[in-house]
Structure formats: C-alpha cells, structure tokens
C-alpha cells in the first residue's frame, strides 16, 4: 500500500518505550499530517523527547507502531538510513561537528550520504546559510559561533538533506534568552514554507503562534491535546491546568 499525502505523514499508535524497568512512554498515539506543525509540551521527564527520538529510530520502541510516510519504524529489518534521509533532527545541544566549518557541516551529509555533486551541494549550502541569516559565517568553526548561530547552522545542516519531516528536541533550551528568538524565527519561517514539524518545546508563546496542534504529555501519556487556542484557554485536565498555571 503506497503512502499518499492525504494519509498522516507520521502516525504514532500506542507506543510503549522503557529504559530498563522505567517505562517512559505508556501508550502514546498521535497523527501528524503533511505540512502540519505539532508541538509537544509537558514537564521534564514526561517522555516528550523520547517520543520524537523514536520517530527517527534513535531510540527503539518495545510495543506499538510508528509509521513515517507509511513505513513502519518498529521493524527489525528497518533501513534506518533510508528513514533518516526523510526525517531531519535538531538537538538541544546543537551537536555541530567541531572539526568542520559551518559550510562543511551543512555540506557533509548531502556529499557523503546522498553522494550529490559537490558544486550543487555547495550552492545549496550557501542558500541555506542565507536562509538562516548567517551570511559571512560560512567559514567559521562552531566554536567561533554563538549558541544561537550554532543552532541555526544545525537547522540548515538538517535541511540540506531535504527532509520531509523535521524534529526539534528542545532546540532553544540551552540558549541565552537573547538568542532564542533568532532560532525561533528560523523555525517559524520553515513552518510557513510548509515543512512538517514536530517540536518539543518550553516556549509557550511560540507554540501558540506556530502550532497547528498541541499535545501535552505527563508521565508517559498524552493528557490533553487540541488546537493552540483551545489548549491554552480552555484546558480541561487538572494536570494541564496546573502545568500551565506554573509556566504562564
């Protein structure tokens, strides 16, 4: 059965995940349609990062199903490399390759994995640098860039693989307050371009602005979900209300 884009791009069903005896996901389900932006929020330790790390098979799951464009991720014969070509990921700690310049960081994966032509890749990389507003930093090493700049290089690095879905794992959590916005702006523009995004975030105002759908997780389950307005103004679950009360 071929996947068509009227079906969910990412379909998560009853996912269970344990680290040893600790069960961090206890039956989580959600669908993400093409072009949708989904924000996952919740207290720390609620399993939200684990959930999106399962989508590109950085973590395996014990039970349930994750379909990415119709392809089952919970499958021992899964070609992880093929999956990861479609799914980009940005991390809290940027994780740029410190021995490569900004431009080289962006060019590496298309060159080595997709084996694209070097001239084309460099052109693409320069376009992406421009897109995340880092012109002039092409030849800087990550150590010479601020956190916000590094994170934007990391976003560009993921985009260079031309993914269908982007995963953002608390990408502003390690940043100085004044550089948070430059990263959020980059993500917002990406969302406006129609990129399918799954974000784990603590930036509530941002979530409200860009998300099509918000999920609130607590202790491994989805407690509440809905459109941003319903979620922030008319939350019904007591845990959600308590969390929002603390954070807003």
């Amino acid at each position, binding site marked *: 059965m071929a996947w068509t884009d009227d079906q969910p791009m990412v379909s998560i069903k009853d996912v269970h995940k344990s680290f040893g005896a600790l069960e961090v996901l206890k039956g989580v389900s959600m669908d993400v349609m093409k072009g949708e932006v989904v924000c996952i929020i919740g207290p720390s330790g609620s399993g939200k990062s684990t959930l999106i790390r399962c989508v*590109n098979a*950085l973590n395996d799951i014990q039970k349930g199903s994750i379909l990415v464009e119709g392809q089952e991720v919970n499958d021992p014969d899964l070609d*992880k*490399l*093929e999956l*990861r*070509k479609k*799914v*980009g*990921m940005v*991390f809290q*700690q940027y*994780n*740029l*390759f*410190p*021995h490569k310049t900004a431009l080289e960081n962006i060019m*590496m*994966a298309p060159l*080595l*994995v997709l084996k694209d032509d070097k001239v084309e890749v460099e052109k693409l990389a320069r376009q992406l640098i421009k897109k995340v507003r880092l012109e002039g930093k092409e030849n800087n090493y990550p*150590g010479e860039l601020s956190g916000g700049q590094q994170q934007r290089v*990391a976003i560009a*690095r*993921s985009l260079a*693989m031309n993914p269908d879905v982007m995963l953002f794992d608390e990408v502003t959590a390690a940043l100085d307050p004044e550089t948070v916005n430059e990263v959020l702006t980059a993500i917002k523009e990406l969302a406006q371009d129609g990129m399918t995004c799954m974000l784990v975030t603590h930036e509530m105002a941002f979530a409200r602005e860009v998300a099509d759908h918000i999920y609130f997780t607590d202790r491994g389950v989805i407690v509440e979900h809905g459109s941003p307005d319903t979620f922030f103004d008319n939350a019904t679950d007591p845990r959600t209300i308590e969390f929002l009360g603390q954070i807003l």
Partner: protein
Amino acid sequence: MTMKQSEKNILPVMMPPRARPADKFRLKAWHGVVLAFIAVVASIPAFAAADPTRASMFEVLARWVPLLLKGFVFNVIISMSAMAFGTMAGAALGLGQISLNPWVRKSAWFTTQFFRNAPWLVLLFFAMFLLPFEIKIGGMTIPLPDWLKAMFGLSLPVMANVSEIVRGGIASLPSGQWEAAESLAFSRTQVLWRIILPQCVKRMLPPWMNLYSILTMATVLASIVGVSEVMTLTGQALAAEGGRSDLLIPFYSFVLLLFFIYCYPIARWTVRLEKKFAVIN
C-alpha cells in the same frame, strides 16, 4: 535566606578555577651539563684510586662512544618499529572493542586486557622463545633475527595500550556527535571515520606519545635476551676493558644521558599538547 544576592552569586562552584602557579622549573640544556658534572664528581673516588698508568676513564669512554651511539640508534629503531606495528594492531583492536558484534567486541576486550596486564619482560621472553628463528613461506626462507623478535615482543604491550587509548578516545566524545551524525543518515563506518576519529586523534596524541617514551626506555629489556642494543654493548665494552670498576659509573651515566636527551623533549612536547588540547571542548 539571610544571604544577600551578591553573596549568593559567588558560590565557590561558580567561580573560575584558580590559576595554577606557573610551572617554574623546566630543564634547560645547562641542567644537563650540571648533571654530567655531578656524575663526574661522583666518580672521582674511583678515579683517584685508579692506577695512573692506565688510560683515564674519559679516554676509554671516548673510544667506545661511537659503538654505544650505534647501539642507541638500534634502540631507537626497535622502539619506532615496535611503535608502528603496535599502533596499527592496537588501532584495529581498539576499533574491535567498540564493534557491534559481541564476539568481536569481547575478544578484542580480552586481548587488550590480557596484554595490558602482562609484564613487558615476560612478553618479550615469550616472543623470543616462541617465534622460530626463520619462517618458510613457499620456497622462501625469511630469517627472524633476534631484534625483529624483540620488536614483536615489545609491540604486544604497545598494541594493548594503544587499543585502550583508541577506545577511551572514542568514548570521550559526547554521544551527541554520534546522534547528530546518525540523524543525518550517516552509516556507522562514516560516523566513525568522518566524525568521531578525526576529533579523537588530537586527544589520543598525548597518551600515545607518552607510551612511545615508555616504550623507548623499555627497549633496554632486549639486552636481557641478547639483542645488541646499547645496554648489551655497554656491558660488552666494560668487559673488554677488563671489568674496571671505575668505568661503571661513566659508562652507565652515558647511557642514562642518551635516553634522557631523547625522551625528555618528547615528554615536554606531550605536556604542551595536553595543555593545548585541554582548552578545546
């Protein structure tokens, strides 16, 4: 609660580490001269007791210096080849230690631990007595001289130590580097060779140089198994001079000095590299 805001801000853990006092004492060339002088003065009692009709100990030493230097060059050759061989084998073994295949991983771990916890001299004896004096491949006979066997024996502990340096270097990188590269659909081999190892090499260099220094000093063990390196030659020279006791100190001091001149710069360089790389990351 009673603390003022300003006092809270200077928790000891938040303060920058106190600068260590500068390393004031560093060996310079003139320190070597002083050491040599002390060695000479220390040997004066033996010198005074000597028969004036015999050649002075410096004349004797000068006569043997070319041979001893040749012996020392041999030590250096053994150390370099053992290092090269041990590094290649050790790098393979170190990569084996992080293999995804549990059998490869476990056997690499066992081999590493076995040779790392074995006395170098015992390994040397094993190599000397277990290896044949020649090997026949097809119609060809390849002789295995003693120094080659010694080189092989010494490269075994080097291999095990390099294996640990490689494994430790790889483990010292944050896991985020693996995850980022894997998320970009890099294969495991690509992650290792393109992302992880290029970053590790810098970190592995100081312990690797340290190991080389230790290996160089251990090459004199080969004298016990009869390889004609500097210690063996020194013993033979002393015997040729009729076992004069006043010659012992100058001859062995000379050997010490040779090793010191060779190894001390390596040690200084290692310290410099360690300091340089300590700041990064």
